[in-house]
């Protein structure tokens, strides 16, 4: 395991360098926007990575809350399974297909719905007990970093293309900012709350915060926005060569995010170990210390 991290780091560094070369040199120049469109190769993969991390945080938080009682744990398993099966079948019903926005393929929606139980059981298996909470805080923090990049690169791209840094009132932009604020407040809650219920409160906040992710993602389908149409599975179209470079960059970003999450996960485990050691030391100190003379009972 100790050898795996440096090997993966080297592979990721090579992949990131290759992705950068593809983005700046190999990808064709856009006829309308010129070279500035190449920001897409960092902006979109960062957004997808942030969404994936917030999704992991959501699943981990739901499981953490569900595991509080054995009965709720069993109920949650069946509910998640039912959501996956019913949701996947519903995507192929003509009534549902008619309501899907133009360009959204039913099989893509069904795959996304099936990912919910798949992730749920995989995460439950790999991260038992308190490790679910460690995973939740890890994915939220790294997700916020990637979301910050989306919020920084977006306006830098918008300025030369739209002529403005930010479109006030635009639902895609505003909902992304709200998403970022929700997860920042989640991290602030975890950092500064000293209550014994902090982990439960944070998990509940994460569950409600995750509801903003579909709003961000689907806002460009359901509302009129300044933001362009999605490049995959939506009304937008993209040159296959550009799409190829975009997917390479996303793969590189995913590998990088995985490494960062791994480090953050280890950091959180170390943090809890230190806290435990502090608590043990305090306990040992309290029992070893002689009681105050005034408190001693007269003999």
């Amino acid at each position, binding site marked *: 395991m100790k050898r795996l991290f440096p090997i993966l780091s080297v592979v990721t560094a090579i992949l990131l360098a290759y992705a950068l070369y593809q983005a700046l040199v190999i990808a064709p120049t856009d006829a309308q926007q010129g070279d500035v469109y190449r920001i897409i190769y960092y902006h979109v993969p960062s957004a997808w990575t942030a969404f994936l991390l917030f999704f992991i945080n959501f699943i981990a938080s739901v499981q953490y809350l569900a595991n509080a009682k054995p009965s709720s744990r069993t109920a949650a398993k069946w509910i998640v399974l039912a959501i996956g099966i019913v949701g996947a079948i519903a995507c192929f019903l003509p009534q549902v297909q008619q309501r899907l926005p133009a360009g959204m393929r039913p099989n893509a929606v069904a795959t996304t719905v099936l990912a919910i139980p798949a992730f749920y059981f995989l995460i439950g298996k790999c991260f038992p007990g308190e490790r679910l909470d460690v995973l939740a805080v890890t994915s939220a923090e790294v997700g916020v970093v990637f979301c910050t*990049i989306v919020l920084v690169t977006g306006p830098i791209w918008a300025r030369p293309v739209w002529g403005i840094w930010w479109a006030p009132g635009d639902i895609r932009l505003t909902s992304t900012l709200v998403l970022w604020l929700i997860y920042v407040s989640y991290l602030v809650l975890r950092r500064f709350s000293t209550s014994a219920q902090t982990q439960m409160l944070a998990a509940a906040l994460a569950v409600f915060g995750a509801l903003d992710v579909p709003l961000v993602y689907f806002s460009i389908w359901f509302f009129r926005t300044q933001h362009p149409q999605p490049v995959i599975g939506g009304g937008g179209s993209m040159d296959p060569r550009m799409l190829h470079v975009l997917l390479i960059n996303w793969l590189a970003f995913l590998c990088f995010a995985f490494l960062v999450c791994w480090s953050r996960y280890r950091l959180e485990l170390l943090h809890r170990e230190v806290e435990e050691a502090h608590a043990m030391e305090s306990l040992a100190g309290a029992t070893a210390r002689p009681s105050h003379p005034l408190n001693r009972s007269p003999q």
Partner: protein
Amino acid sequence: MNSLKFLFAAYLATWVIHAIYLGTLVRRFSRLRQQLKELGKGK
């Protein structure tokens, strides 16, 4: 040329944010290791 300025600014901003975050992780790791050492559990 002007658009290239924005392109490089976006790429640079991305890596600056990552570098700052990785820097905080390294700092937090070293602080916790130091605390563990002080508690007599460090190796």
